[in-house]
């Protein structure tokens, strides 16, 4: 059975999964979950995703949520096709896990926090907390200073090959740039890395939304 992807066409986490499906040449059927109508909080949805979040997949009966877990599953299940996204050598793999953890703890809280304060909260009737946005941006800048050091020694976050860890940054990195928060361009190594990852045809194919 073709993989079923339940998500929202422009949702960051849905796009995170979509880019990996493209990288691994895995066909999928997309089912739109209408966030604007609260479909993700409906009992039928929550039965599959108890946190009421998108996306989730149905892979021949295996229901899986958490976009990064879905990406890992796809990269592992289809290891022998498309782009290799998780190293197999034990030390390279450990450095991949380090890079993946860097994204979740040193990038995502600040990038997604900024996306919320400066764009998404308005969709739900909220208002930008300017002080909080400023703090988040300062923190993000500090983190990217460390990225600048790392990426001065190697091409990508886990080493010299692209991995899932780099791709995980795409959706929120793209959103904050779109909002006007550019902490990449002033850091030459980060800029080089960001340009390399975003210019991948797979990201270009999904970045504006999936059908």
């Amino acid at each position: 059975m073709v993989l079923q992807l339940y998500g929202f066409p422009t949702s960051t986490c849905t796009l995170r999964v979509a880019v990996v499906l493209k990288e691994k040449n895995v066909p999928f059927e997309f089912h739109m979950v209408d966030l604007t109508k609260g479909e993700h909080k409906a009992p039928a949805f929550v039965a599959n995703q108890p946190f009421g979040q998108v996306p989730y997949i149905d892979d021949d009966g295996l229901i899986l949520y958490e976009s990064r877990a879905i990406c890992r599953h796809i990269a592992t299940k289809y290891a022998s096709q498309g782009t290799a996204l998780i190293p197999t050598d034990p030390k390279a793999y450990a450095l991949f896990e380090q890079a993946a953890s860097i994204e979740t703890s040193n990038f995502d809280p600040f990038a997604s926090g900024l996306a919320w304060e400066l764009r998404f909260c308005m969709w739900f009737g909220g208002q930008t907390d300017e002080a909080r946005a400023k703090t988040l941006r300062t923190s993000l800048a500090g983190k990217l200073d460390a990225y600048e050091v790392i990426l001065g020694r190697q091409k990508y976050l886990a080493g010299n090959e692209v991995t899932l860890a780099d791709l995980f940054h795409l959706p929120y990195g793209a959103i904050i740039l779109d909002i006007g928060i550019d902490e990449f361009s002033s850091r030459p190594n980060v800029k080089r890395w960001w340009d390399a990852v975003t210019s991948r045809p797979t990201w270009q194919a999904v970045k504006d939304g999936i059908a």
Partner: protein
Amino acid sequence: MVLKLHGFPLSTCTRLVALICKEKDIPYELIAVDLMKGEHKSPAFKEHQPFGQVPYIDDDGFILYESRAICRYLINKYPNQGTLGLIPTGLQAEALFEQASSVECTNFATTAGPLMAEKVFKPRRGLQTDEARAAEYLAGLNAKLDAYDVILGKQRYLAGETVTLADLQHLPYGALVCYSGHADVFSSRPNVARWWNEISDRPTWNAVKNGA
């Protein structure tokens, strides 16, 4: 050469690594990093950990940071000793483990972490708790644990019927949540309470919870 754990005895992330060393019967040497003196921000430290955070390990010259990555590395390096199955094998079991591990990072750490920053870490540094923000984080944590209670009503642990790293990832911040007077987030939900009591009763956690 004995594994060197560079960290702070009471740091949440340092204690997570120490816990996994206990689970996997891995001897280690704790090399204390003086956070009070800002040692973690020194150039010498940042050579090894560019974000200036604890912990990192030196495994016979192999440097690794990010506590969850260190835990994964140690579990994978010693698959046949200590507690088995902390990272399951097999495509489906692995996927459900990754789901559970991600749930901790994106749903628990993102609420419990900032809540503890407001209620515990800021006062320790002489700063004032932002009570409104703390209330927001507490509400967020409670909402997430409602979902945990559903999951844990169907299965014993977060990834299935056996304990995995995903469960253990919750211990350091979870214990701090209890210490700060919010144990009711666990105890008020029957399935979460059962799960929390089981994992926090592990002798391995009790061996490190007061210092790595």
